[in-house]
């Protein structure tokens, strides 16, 4: 019924989508792993990043500048949020953290809506991303291949930062025992500030990268948030590998289901999440750890 060619191309499609999903969810999972806070404003930061990128792109026509602006803009917003609000919630119940970040998300989205209006914006592909490339077994949009490469590059950089640098070591130690790290003379507060900002920046960058494919609208924030949740629930929240595995799994499920019946893609994704919740509630690569 399905040709091997179609299957192969959908498999590849799923991988590209999956790594983008992993990029989307990474900020969420790292902030949770380090600070113990689930950032319900994550989808909103994704949208904010996308719009900042959109403005810069419209201004100068450079997509690379747009990517940088989206990441830096959301990084700064993340820093401000952490200082003004989030840090007061580290010792409050998880429910309060969820409520406050959710409220922040609404404020961010409504600010975007009042600045840019509610109608969606289409972002044209950068000049270096137009057209298709022949992969040998199929023709594939060039931008999607580049996106795949950029996603792998960024995920790789984050992995190195987390597992091969001193800062990463401090972050990991802070997850284990924040007080002990503090006693050892390391300023954990500053590390936490940086981590929250980086999580926001990751969301913002993903927003810029995805904008030529998804087209931007304020209302997409909730869908992005839900997708990120599904990815981290499947992969195991707080785990870097979990975000990647969960992202790729989600991407393949969406892509392969759409080959059979596009109406059921999302339903299949949630069915997969339900199965994980039943048989492995901590997620594929999650540990009981927190919670």
């Amino acid at each position, binding site marked *: 019924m399905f040709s091997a060619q179609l299957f192969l191309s959908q498999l590849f499609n799923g991988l590209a989508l999956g790594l983008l999903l992993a990029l989307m969810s990474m900020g969420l999972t790292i902030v*949770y792993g380090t600070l113990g806070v*689930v950032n*319900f404003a994550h989808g909103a930061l994704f949208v904010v990043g996308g719009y900042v990128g959109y403005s810069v792109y419209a201004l100068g026509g450079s997509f690379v500048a747009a990517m940088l602006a989206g990441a830096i803009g959301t990084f700064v917003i993340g820093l401000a949020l952490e200082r003004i*609000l989030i840090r*007061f919630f580290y010792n409050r119940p*998880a*429910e*309060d953290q*969820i*409520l*406050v970040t*959710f*409220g*922040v998300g*609404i*404020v961010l989205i*409504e*600010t975007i*809506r*009042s600045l840019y209006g509610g109608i969606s914006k289409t972002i044209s592909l950068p000049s270096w991303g137009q057209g298709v490339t022949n992969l040998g077994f199929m023709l594939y949009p060039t931008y999607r291949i580049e996106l795949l490469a950029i996603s792998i590059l960024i995920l790789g950089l984050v992995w190195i930062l987390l597992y091969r640098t001193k800062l990463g070591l401090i972050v990991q130690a802070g997850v284990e025992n924040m007080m002990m790290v503090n006693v050892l003379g390391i300023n954990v507060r500053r590390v936490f500030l940086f981590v929250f900002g980086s999580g926001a920046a990751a969301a913002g960058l993903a927003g810029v990268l995805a904008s030529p494919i998804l087209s931007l609208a304020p209302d997409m924030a*909730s*869908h992005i*948030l*839900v997708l990120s*949740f*599904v990815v*981290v*629930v499947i992969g195991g*929240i707080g785990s870097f590998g979990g975000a990647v595995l969960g992202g790729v799994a989600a991407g393949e499920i969406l892509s392969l289901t759409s080959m059979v019946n596009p*109406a*059921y893609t*999302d*339903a299949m994704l*949630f069915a997969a*999440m*339900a199965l994980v*919740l*039943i048989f492995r*509630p*901590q997620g594929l690569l999650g540990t009981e750890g927190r*919670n």
Partner: protein
Amino acid sequence: MTAGGAIRRWWPELVLFAVLVPAPYLGGFVGIGPDLLGRILIWGLFGLGFSLLFGYAGLLSFGQSAFFGTGGFVCAYLLAEGHVQNTLIALLVGTVAAAAAGLVIGFLTLRRTGIYFAMGTLAFAEMFYFLENSPLKHWTRGENGISGIPSAQISFGMMSFEVASGWQMYAFIAALFYIGFIVARLIAGSPFGAVLTAIRGNPQRASAVGHAIGRYKLAIFVVAAAYGGLAGGLLGIFQSYMPPDAFKLETSAQLVMQTVIGGAGNLLGPLVGAAVWLCLYEILQHTFAVGPYWKLILGIVFVLLVALLRRGLCGVVEDVFVKLADRYKGKRIGETSVGKLGIFAAARSSTGSPVLQARALSKAYAGFQAVAEVDFSLQEGEIHGIIGPNGAGKSTFFKMLAGEINPSSGQILLRGDDITALGATEICQLGMSKGYQINQLFESLSVRESLRIPALARARGKFRFDIFRAAHRIDDVERQVEAALTLVQLHDRQDVLVHELSYGEKRRLEIGLVLATGANILLLDEPLAGMSPEERAHVIKLLRSLRTGRSIVIVEHDMDAMFGLADRITVLCEGRLLDEGSPAHIQKSQAVQEAYLGGAKEHELA
């Protein structure tokens, strides 16, 4: 009950009645019509279920839209297609369908707590939205929603009448809201509701004193889903159109925000929150300058409330009233006579056979043997001490006895029955309860309310949906609470909130919780830790007095107290059984002295 007592007990019902009845007349003066009032009541009804779920049981769900939509679409479909004429029947079917959806989603999402629960409910609600939009399009008409819902037709047997839109519709919704409010109040004030607040405060302890908390959570989740379904059904009838937006995350979000603004821990909160939200929306919409920013403004208000006034508007009012009441209230005088603490009747075991027995009990963590092949037996009426240097495996051993962790191998017998891996809740229901080294209390409840939680587990078993009783009016439960209060000498502190107690008082309450379960086998983990000398003397006396009808195992570092109290002592060292015998035997034991004093000997030589 005196008239004053009735007013004190039923004031929320009275206040609500006094608001709902004149609302159509008063609303006219400020330009609030039946349409706005109807929507406020529908959202308020939706919020009642959420308030029970979040405010009472502490379960923050972001997926209530799934139930609002399910109830709404089932009800709308039945009415619009003409399958059902009687509106009440359609509402009932919609509510039941929503409750059934709640049972499925609750079963899946309640497997995890906190963040996972919030994320899981949100994701499943999104799934319902997609189901409505694609696979079920044939019935739900997808993005168009169901229009043409006929006006409400109510039939009771032969009687039948039509509800016109406008004030008649308001009266219909108000009546249903009032019933929903009374049911929610019954739930909140019932023993079932009391257990929910205990679960919110400290789920581990609520489960350890004998409540099957998983079933309580699922039950309240289904109740909240039913409220959502009823409200959704009403929405469709009210506007004769069922919008697909009902399934969207925005619906859940509005519900969460409204209820938190009004005050989630108070049943008037959802109505106040809905009124504030919808009225502000109307006002801001008509104020041209800020019209487009209404949601931004409400978002900022919400963030500020969460950050500064977490208990919402009703919480603030309640705090003021409590302060005023405290100022004018005299001291409470104890009125109930103190009876004897009830304990589970000990099953007759043949004399001499152990009450509690562990056979070759072991626990290994990845590469570390915490407890290795320990045999242990407790005789009826005995006080049995467990001692050992730090890291000897005492706590792990104790946790296994209490059913808190499963042993890697070995067997635990309670009066001859195997209870290995049965879990703390079941074990507590069999009459064995554990007191903790680090206090595990219900910090936000009063002392009396706290002690009621274990007493309720004893009186009602591990789960019961008994919403037609008042939690504080069950005679044998109150007698049990009084007796426990008296034993741990907290009688004059009974109305104080637990987090306001001194450390010593908290330690006594910790023992009180164990006693109120009615257990006849007590496992006490360092009951004297951190107490002042006078408090120690009191607790030691208490422990001695408790042995009638009970058997007690104590882990304790205070050797003097232990040698004075215990009939037998077991010594653990590096996870193994080192020695066992009478206090006199242990005091003389060479092996024990070496285990404890090995370091001291080297010190003497130096």
